[in-house]
């Protein structure tokens, strides 16, 4: 069963005042194609903006941060390019409707309000081919749904879950224990190899470095803040195949970077686990993944979703997620997705609503 055979219901938005706004996409999701070096990786995506079935002309559409250069035409149509080689979900809104006309008439204030609040999303996803049409009934136990996750060619499987990096994480504070914001932490091996930078710290002072511990290397640790580069004077050895936790301290004076041990020595602690990247499919209700046991797609893209108990009637739909996560447990293609890896709520960029499964009572 190909999950792309579906309606465009997600294009329709019902506003508070009862108006129905449609962005009119033929499909809300398109399947990922393999990237082509000599071909085109962008696909034109056309929509047609209507309000209560009437075309909306002169409205400006926005896709994520990108504002389309031309407003909707007289029949409400618009078009933009999408990269069809990356899993993605793009939010579509109306950036400006001040000059919009509905069936040739300037929009009223109510209509403007409805239009500027309307949004939908379009996704680029792996092709889900289910092994048969699942039927779900409230009260069912141990329901198992299986299928394959592939590129649009139906043969190339989704890239398997992969160990990506080991990490060093911790909190950087000042001498008085206050977390430091906008600090960039870095390490570098003795030969300039095995270097890593963090992103700037947020209000919590938390930093993460991604690296591959080299047993033959000792690492210098540094932190850049403002105009100063703070440098640890104590090289550190990190064990191979291990992550680490290490809190850091920026002193009030001087430019030495300190640890939390005696006399400011660094105190790295071994941290079991590593960072992985993987893509999976799951089921969700109202933006929330349901309690299910998922497996990572194997090297052929085959996956399963095991639902211990179907609790309530309603509608489930598939989502997909490309996740980058730290876990203490080894993740393997075809193996179970570890606990705590799935977020409690779907992130904005995760495609969802890909195929509705009705749970009957």
């Amino acid at each position, binding site marked *: 069963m190909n999950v792309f055979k579906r309606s465009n219901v997600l294009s329709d938005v019902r506003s508070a005042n009862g108006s129905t706004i449609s962005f009119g996409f033929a499909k809300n999701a398109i399947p990922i194609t393999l990237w082509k070096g000599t071909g085109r990786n962008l696909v034109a995506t056309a929509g047609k903006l209507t309000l209560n079935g009437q075309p909306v002309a002169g409205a400006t559409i926005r896709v994520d941060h*990108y504002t389309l250069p031309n407003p909707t035409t007289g029949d409400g149509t618009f078009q933009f390019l999408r990269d069809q080689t990356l899993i993605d979900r793009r939010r579509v809104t109306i950036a400006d409707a001040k000059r919009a006309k509905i069936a040739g008439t300037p929009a009223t204030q109510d209509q403007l309000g409805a239009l500027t609040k309307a949004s939908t999303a379009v996704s680029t996803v792996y092709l889900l081919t289910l092994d048969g049409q699942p039927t779900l009934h409230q009260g069912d136990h141990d329901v198992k749904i299986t299928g394959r996750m592939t590129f649009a060619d139906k043969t190339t499987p989704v890239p398997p879950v992969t160990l990506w990096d080991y990490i060093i994480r911790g909190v950087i504070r000042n001498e008085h224990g206050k977390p430091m914001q906008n600090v960039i932490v870095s390490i570098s091996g003795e030969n300039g190899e095995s270097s890593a930078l963090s992103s700037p710290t947020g209000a919590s002072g938390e930093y993460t470095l991604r690296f591959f511990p080299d047993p033959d290397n000792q690492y210098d640790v540094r932190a850049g803040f403002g105009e100063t580069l703070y440098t640890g004077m104590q090289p550190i050895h990190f064990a191979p195949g291990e992550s680490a936790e290490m809190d850091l301290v920026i002193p009030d004076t001087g430019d030495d970077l300190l640890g939390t041990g005696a006399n400011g020595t660094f105190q790295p602690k071994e941290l079991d686990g590593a960072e992985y990247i993987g893509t999976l499919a799951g089921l969700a209700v109202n933006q929330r993944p349901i309690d299910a046991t998922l497996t990572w797609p194997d090297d052929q893209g085959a996956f399963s979703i095991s639902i211990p108990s179907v609790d309530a009637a309603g509608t489930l739909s598939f989502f997909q997620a490309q996740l980058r996560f730290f876990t203490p447990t080894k993740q393997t293609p075809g193996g179970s997705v570890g606990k705590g890896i799935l977020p409690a709520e779907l992130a904005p960029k995760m495609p969802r609503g890909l195929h509705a499964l009705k749970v009957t009572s």
Partner: protein
Amino acid sequence: MGFDVLSRRVSRRDLLKVSGVAVAATAVGVGPRLANGPGLFAAPAAAPSKGATSGDWPTFGYDYAQTRHVPFDQITKENVAKVGRVWSYDFLEGNKDIPPGQESFPIVVDGVLYVTTSFDNVFALDAKSGKLLWRWKPEQIGFFKNFGLTYNRGVAYGEGKVYLLTLDMHVVAIDAKTGKLVKQITIGDTVEGADASLGYYETVAPIYYNGTLFVGSSGSDNGVRGFMMAYKASDLTPAWANPFWTVPPAGQGWRKQGNFHGGGTPWMPGTIDTETDILYFATGNPSPDFFGEVRPGSNPNVDSCIAVNAKTGEQIWVAQSITRDLWDYDMAAPIVLMTANVGGEQRKVVAEGSKAGQWWCWDAANGKVIYDGVPFSTIKHPKPTEQGVIAAPGPLGGANYAPQSYDPTTNYYLICNVESPALLKQATAQQIERRGQGDVDFGGTFENAPNVEPYGTYVAIDMNTGKIVYNKKVPGVLRSGFTTTATGLGLFAGTKGDENIHAIDTSSGDMLWSFGVGGEVAAAPTVYMIDGQEYIALTVGGTSTSGTIPTQSMIEVFALGGNTQQIAPATPVATPAAQPIPGRDQWLVNDPNHTDGVIFNAIAALTEDNNGMNFNGYGNGQMTITVPKDWLLTIKLWNKSARLPHSIVVTTEDNFRKQVGQSGGFEPAFVGAYAPANPINGYIGNSPQPLQSNSGNIKLSTPGTYILACDVPGHAAQGMWDVLKVDPNATKPSLSTSQGGTPVAGTPVASPVEGAGGM
């Protein structure tokens, strides 16, 4: 690519340490003008945001076509030797937070010169006077100090704003009049993963065109996924719906085997055909650079010229220079777009000479190859091994990021080439696995080939035939790039051993002018006109791959009628050989042109006595020159010091006493009685400096005692002064020293000046 030598407390990111020298791997990297009007690019059109006929240099490569060819004709082959310095600016003076070195290509808009420095500082200077108008610097530079690469290659101008890309992957808009920050965005917010923590960084100048800002990045050698992106200049929101990715996503195609391997970053600015709205850009090497086993196939789109729709980012065509790159052979320099005489007909083409030491030319419309890999450098491309192989060019040459120029006056294409073969050693498979995302990804190491001194050549290729017209050697590697003018001049500058700006006759390659600029140069000249005066601006300071560790960050600006005093260390290339310092018997000699004339060769810092603060070995008034009244005195100032500048002023005793405690500023006692032109700055160099009087001499019409003093602040106070006596009773000049003097090689005595023998 760049290299750096670093202490333990200095950054080592992007670096490989090879044989005691840390070597980085990717050698590496306005609206303006459109140069692609009909026919040759004789007259650039207007900058989009300003008037049509200015003398500005409004975008990185002068025009959108990146021709670096200006229509200005004031400086010619005949008068270029009269070009001298008109102003300079030292970016390090008072700004100790800026690291030395310079790779910035200035732009000039409405009389203001915008130039960057390391650590992403932006300076706005009055382009006529060099006066500082404003300076902008990032707030967070602490981590820059641990980044290894520090350079920035310039800004774009448009809509009253100056646009900058920062090392930590931001786009910055600055008010061009005030220098105040207008807006700053994080590139990673709109280009997934384009974050410094994942190996990306920016040294490139953006390009402003028709309301859009085009942004590439660096990071090929860190295994990133190359991209080009467009933003609206008005608010820095995306102008394209998607980035243009140059290589496959991680896990696909040739990136399937190693998720962290990548490349294809466009790390020099793009090129735009304003007639077709096609954006062309060159892409960098694949990584791991020297280890191809984990990136099978030809790795399409790296080391390539890519043509995309500038409005949408849709690909139009791609042409790869070399396939299966194992040597770090980026296409680095900007693509040059031109309508040239090709095979006897006018054709719109694009071209680029690459780090592979070869030059390609393609049809601009469809990418069909016209000239295919014409070699202009020594070519030797063996497969790297763990034991090491000698490859030529090495990863720092042949044509690195230095921009190239099309000269329509000759129909020649001009390239700055680097001849620096390298010993490449491939990493082991185990080493390849030992890296995290964003870490350096060379797949080996390289160093200069043993017993080979790198050098540069400048190359001209006839667009009509694709043949090399000339390929001439200069001492240092060439990092600057070419700029050509309507009068058939080709301007570029050198590096170690050749710290000069040069002007060649583009038709013959003959060296017409070389002028010492005091340091290595790693950016091409910018040429502009203001109030009828043609200026040449050049950043000086070099880069870590230009020969020596940078110590400077300057801009020097030249024009006709400027001070022709060169700045040491000036290595003569097609300039007169250094003149020998006069011996003792030549200190005071008859003037062959005037019966009652005498020439005094004043030699600053002849000895190390008095810490070098002496003339002819004497200071504190221990040497006296006596000259009869009404004689003509010619003074030639020599400076034996290669480190300290010196000068000489003939002043009165009263003025000397008054000013010596004020760090100089002596009043000449006679018109023009000083040398060089700016005695407070002084000079360093091999050639003697004449007095600044019209005739080069002064008539000693007023008897009395005068002081010969160095006017460089502090020098006279340290004793760098001697005595001139104008004696109405004397019949001939003489030179004497006091008993307490500091003699040189025997004690000078009053020197007879009659007769030719002593002259």
